[in-house]
């Protein structure tokens, strides 16, 4: 069962897409810090965040091997259900126009304004504050990446393909950020979030059931069926609940 194509493909894709979403959000804040205070504090903060994330993976990774597989499947399954359905819910509400879409350009402007305001108040400590902002962004967004990678891989022994997917996404986003030097506002973030929410919810359903002793029909292929069900529910709900945008509402 371990390492079958029905697991490797979705695990790698979920890790890639989920990491891309988080990397885009972290990049926006690191770029804002670099714009206001230069690359030194921005880079230093980001680097410290990455080092701490690596430490967390190195310390927590081997500990997971000590947990009995059945318990690990159940615990990770429930966490994946909570995490995946949270993303899916948000993506559906955004797609339906009930809550606004995330705007990287606006997030960049807000972050830059906040840093400038801090500059006005605490000029002497600003490099420290700027590095801390960059550190916090990389750490918090990175924690979600670490969770996604561990969750989609740990219960099925897919750490390497999931890590490759996540690393590829982070490198791609970092390279794009270096080239364009602007927030990646044109990345279809909500579509990615929708897709990752569907995949993580499907994985969560599968592992929670396995943890409870449910033998899903079709074994691993049940993940694909769960993904299709969550996708159908998501698309149907987004269409049913859709509210016209302010432009569409105009006569």
């Amino acid at each position, binding site marked *: 069962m371990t390492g079958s194509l029905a697991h490797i493909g979705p695990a790698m894709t979920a890790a890639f897409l989920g990491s891309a979403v988080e990397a885009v959000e972290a990049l926006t804040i690191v770029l804002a810090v670099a714009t206001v205070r230069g690359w030194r504090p921005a880079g230093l903060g980001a680097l410290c965040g990455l080092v701490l994330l690596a430490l967390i993976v190195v310390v927590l990774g081997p500990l997971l091997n000590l947990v009995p597989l059945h318990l690990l499947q159940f615990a990770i399954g429930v966490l994946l259900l909570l995490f995946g359905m949270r993303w899916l*819910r948000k993506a559906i*509400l955004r797609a339906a126009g009930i809550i606004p879409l995330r705007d990287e350009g606006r997030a960049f402007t807000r972050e830059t304004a906040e840093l400038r305001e801090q500059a006005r108040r605490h000029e002497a400590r600003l490099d420290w504050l700027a590095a801390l902002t960059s550190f916090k962004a990389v750490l918090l967004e990175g924690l979600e990446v670490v969770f996604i990678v561990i969750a989609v891989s740990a219960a099925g022994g897919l750490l390497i393909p999931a890590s490759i997917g996540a690393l590829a996404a982070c490198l791609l986003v970092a390279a794009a950020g270096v080239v364009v030097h602007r927030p990646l506002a044109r990345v279809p973030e909500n579509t990615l979030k929708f897709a990752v929410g569907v995949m993580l919810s499907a994985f969560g*359903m599968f592992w929670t059931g396995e943890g*409870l002793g449910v033998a899903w029909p079709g074994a691993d292929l049940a993940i694909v069926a769960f993904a299709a069900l969550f996708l159908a529910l998501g698309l149907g709900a987004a269409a049913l*609940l859709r509210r016209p945008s302010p432009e569409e509402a105009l006569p």
Partner: protein
Amino acid sequence: MTGLKAVFRELAGLFVEDGALALEIIAVVILAGVFARLLPDRPAVAGGILLLGCLAALGANLARAARR
């Protein structure tokens, strides 16, 4: 202390954004677990409760969000 609280709040936020949805998912998992224990020779019942319960919880939560 404030920093530590913020870290915990952020960590909890990874899994819980809408408290009602999180509670409903956990309730569905508990219910499926109870049926898995009560009917160990019919695990499909627990699986069905888990799958349909989660889909229903998400659908109901979205409907409530739309009405707000």
